[in-house]
């Protein structure tokens, strides 16, 4: 769209200003910066080159700005630290001097050079020169870009009506936005509604939750959609179109929740809310405080399958609020932001046969315990064991059931330790004579007030034994249970007889997480929970713009953390909606219709479905707001019909050429993705992990940007080796784009084999941002390979990959 604009820019003379930063002694200590600056001055298009002590300082920036005006510069290169740190700083400076910020380029001579070659000043200086040359070569080809703005609808969607979802919905509704709160169960409330008391304050859970639930139900800005599920999501940040399947309740709004229908219903089935400890009817309300408080008919349980049989509820209902003709409907919502608060499942201990859950009546889960001790629960709040409905004289709690274990989830479930301590104290409060054992491997009482609670439990006489039971055996006569395990502190085997056992079951990602993942193109951590955009600094954002996380959907957490996170997510969504618009980084592809063959390969690899190809009308369109700029499409396109802005083929090839101009046979051309592998190289630098000087890194947004032609180009120019590095598979910041990287590299390996080139010379590395050592050792390993590459071999390779 700004092609006419850019042409006029590129027709004028290119004048590049280069600034080589000493960064005190950080760079200057092992790189001769003055020499590098002098060298830069000799490069084509460079109008001015100087060395600066601290280029990021105010004076440094002022000097850059002054240069732009004084020397009529239209490109700026700064050779200093990693662009992940100061690129925004220098871009701003450029803009302040009237230069488009996309005309700025950085050479990383600190993390990728001075810090990893501390003891070889000469080689370090030579490498720094190369890095500057690469930056200058790219800078000459830079184009000004305009960032597009997209409007943001001031409506939000919250998925999941647990405490996190309720909090997020209330925060946003109170701010004044319209909020749709979607819950798949008949009532909002979630896990917190099932729990009896909360730790560490021992507040009654439903007493503090119920007001919030009814607030959410009554709020003029909140539309509650219970018994509803999301079936389709389209659109992008600010403009999502979401299809919701509203299941039929078969009860109209006229319902006054009198309960006559339920009393009349002849069907009794286990109540899901009470984890099967109590019954409900086919027409029911899950619990008294349910919001909305209308009844619902579970059609699977109902006898009235064909409109002619049982009609007891219809007869019983005085307000004629039951209507079996209501059918499920699909509604479409348009929203600007989405908060995913889908919560967590609990571990199913039937997979551990040695604990006998599902076989021994008196082995219960912690969730069942909550219902059992709840005044509104099946036993009216009395601590009765299921086998004979008596108060057990001894209760054992077993910790870490399904947590920190490959049998459930590897991670700690965060809530079980304190939940058990709270439960133990509750028992002691009402039935002080009951003996309580807690079997644990570590008690994690890390939060505010947690340690006090732990201490109180010990004071109350709760016995903590380190070492989990290996086996629970039932005494058939009494239904008492024997726990057999090792006390790992005293190294003795214990055999303890108790009346009831509570398994402290862990939390697990929702079974249907994959559906939400697919609908919103989220990524999931190895433990299955949704992954945040940055674990420290963007903990509630997701890689998909406009979608935020709250509560146990992100990881196992307690009520306080869920509420905190919900408010944070609401606040993040609020920022977007308050601005009403969002700018999109101009790194998205521009289609060249003339080149396009409408083969749709790009749409197949795009992780965001951001490219629309209309073969009939010969239209190829990139939805900029949906595109994240990974460049996967650009690498896939066989006919050069997609120009990846700011990471164009020409720019990357110019960098490759700059690297391979001299001594190519000693060099490793590396392509690193911005998020993980480039950051890993940075981390190696920050940690001063000394490495050989062979490697030259080209930064791309994603490893999927690396087209096979780049690799071929490097080999054709005589490079000794090529490294393609990206995030670990499944950790990709562009959902699954790096699977394409893998595919392309594997394809290139086959090509090398066919052409008689050693496969070791092309390496593929997955490294996370924290794996500096992994990156460094790869560089060392490849430097060894480089030594073994003879000049004949290089000649042969050049020939093999030279374009005919």
């Amino acid at each position, binding site marked *: 769209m700004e092609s006419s604009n850019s042409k006029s820019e590129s027709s004028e003379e290119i004048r590049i200003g280069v600034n080589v930063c000493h960064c005190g002694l950080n760079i200057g200590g092992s790189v001769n910066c003055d020499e590098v600056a002098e060298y830069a001055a000799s490069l084509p298009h460079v109008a001015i080159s100087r060395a600066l002590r601290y280029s990021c300082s105010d004076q440094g920036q002022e000097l850059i700005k002054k240069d732009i005006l004084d020397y009529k510069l239209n490109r700026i290169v700064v050779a200093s630290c990693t662009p992940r740190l100061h690129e925004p700083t220098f871009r701003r400076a450029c803009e302040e001097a009237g230069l488009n910020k996309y005309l700025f380029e950085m050479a990383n001579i600190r993390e990728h050079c001075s810090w990893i070659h501390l003891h070889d000043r000469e080689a370090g200086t030579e490498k720094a020169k190369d890095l500057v040359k690469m930056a200058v070569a790219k800078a000459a080809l830079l184009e000004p870009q305009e960032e597009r703005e997209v409007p943001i609808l001031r409506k939000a969607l919250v998925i999941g009506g647990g405490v996190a979802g309720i909090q997020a919905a209330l925060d946003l509704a109170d701010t004044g936005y319209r909020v749709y709160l979607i819950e798949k*169960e008949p009532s909002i409330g979630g896990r917190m509604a099932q729990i009896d008391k909360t730790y560490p304050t021992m507040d009654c859970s439903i007493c503090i939750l119920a007001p919030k639930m009814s607030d959410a139900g009554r709020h003029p800005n909140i539309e509650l959609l219970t018994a509803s599920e999301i079936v389709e999501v389209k659109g992008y940040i600010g403009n999502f179109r979401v299809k919701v399947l509203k299941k039929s309740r078969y009860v109209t709004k006229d319902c006054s929740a009198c309960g006559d229908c339920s*009393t*009349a219903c*002849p*069907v*009794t089935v*286990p*109540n*899901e809310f*009470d*984890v*099967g*400890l*109590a*019954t409900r009817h086919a027409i029911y309300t899950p619990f008294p405080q349910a919001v909305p408080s209308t009844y619902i008919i579970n059609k699977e349980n109902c*006898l009235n399958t*064909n409109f*002619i*049989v*049982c009609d007891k509820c219809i007869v019983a209902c005085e307000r004629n609020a039951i209507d079996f003709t209501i059918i499920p409907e699909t509604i479409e919502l348009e929203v600007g932001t989405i908060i995913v608060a889908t919560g967590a*499942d*609990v571990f*199913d201990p*039937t997979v551990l046969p040695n604990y006998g859950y*599902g076989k021994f*009546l008196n082995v219960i889960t912690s*969730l069942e315990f909550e219902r059992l001790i709840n005044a509104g629960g*099946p*036993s009216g709040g009395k601590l*009765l064991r*299921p086998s004979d*409905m008596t108060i057990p004289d001894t209760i054992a709690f077993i910790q870490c059931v399904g947590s920190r274990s490959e049998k459930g989830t590897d991670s700690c479930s965060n809530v079980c330790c304190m939940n058990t301590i709270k439960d133990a104290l509750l028992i002691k409060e009402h039935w002080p004579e009951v003996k309580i054992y807690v079997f644990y491997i570590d008690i994690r009482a890390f939060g505010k007030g947690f340690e006090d609670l732990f201490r109180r439990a010990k004071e109350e006489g709760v016995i903590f034994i380190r070492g989990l039971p290996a086996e629970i055996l039932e005494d058939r006569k009494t239904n008492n249970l024997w726990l057999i395990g090792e006390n790992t502190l005293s190294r003795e085997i214990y055999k303890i007889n108790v009346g009831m056992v509570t398994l402290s079951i862990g939390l697990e990602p929702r*079974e249907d997480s994959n559906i939400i993942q697919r609908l919103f193109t989220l990524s999931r951590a190895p433990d299955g929970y949704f992954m945040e955009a940055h674990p420290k600094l963007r903990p509630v954002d997701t890689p998909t713009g406009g979608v935020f996380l709250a509560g146990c959907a992100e990881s196992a957490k307690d009520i306080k953390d869920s509420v905190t996170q919900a408010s944070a997510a609401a606040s993040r969504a609020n920022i977007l909606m308050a601005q009403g618009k969002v700018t999109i980084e101009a790194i998205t592809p521009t289609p060249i219709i003339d080149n396009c063959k409408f083969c749709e390969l790009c749409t197949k690899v795009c992780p965001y479905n951001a490219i629309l190809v209309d073969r009939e009308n010969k239209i190829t369109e990139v939805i900029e707001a949906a595109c994240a700029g990974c460049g996967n499409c650009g690498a896939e396109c066989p006919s050069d019909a997609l120009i990846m802005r700011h990471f164009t083929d020409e720019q990357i090839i110019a960098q490759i050429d700059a690297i391979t101009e001299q001594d190519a046979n000693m060099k490793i051309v590396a392509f690193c993705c911005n998020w993980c592998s480039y950051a890993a190289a940075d981390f190696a630098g920050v940690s001063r992990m000394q490495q050989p000087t062979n490697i030259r890194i080209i930064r791309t947004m994603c490893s999927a940007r690396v087209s096979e032609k780049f690799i071929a180009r490097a080999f054709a120019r005589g490079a000794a080796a090529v490294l393609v590095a990206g995030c670990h598979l499944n950790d990709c910041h562009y959902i699954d784009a790096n699977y394409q990287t893998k595919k392309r590299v594997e394809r290139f390996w086959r090509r090398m084999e066919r052409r008689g080139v050693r496969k070791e010379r092309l390496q593929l590395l997955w490294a996370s941002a924290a794996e500096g050592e992994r990156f460094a050792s790869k560089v060392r390993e490849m430097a060894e390979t480089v030594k073994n590459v003879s000049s004949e071999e290089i000649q042969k390779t050049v020939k093999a990959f030279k374009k005919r």
Partner: protein
Amino acid sequence: MPVKLWRKPLDADKIPKLQYEVHIINERCDGCGFCIDFCPKDVLARAEKMNEKGFYPPQVINEANCTFCGFCRSVCPTCAIFPIEKISRNIKEVE
């Protein structure tokens, strides 16, 4: 909530369990067997004795299972079968 519900609910015995009787008018039955086939709770089976018309009417084999769904009544082409409640219609009285 994909939690497996395996227990007998603790209050299951306290729920007033309604009892039903299935009435069969043997002489009316044409022996089509629909009621036997359609009964969702397998309450009915074919009788061993023929009726006067020469058909095998259904017989009740498992009355405790009847949930009073009324399916048998609905499908019977000769109106020869119907269930009724054994105890009072008013549940509140039972409680």
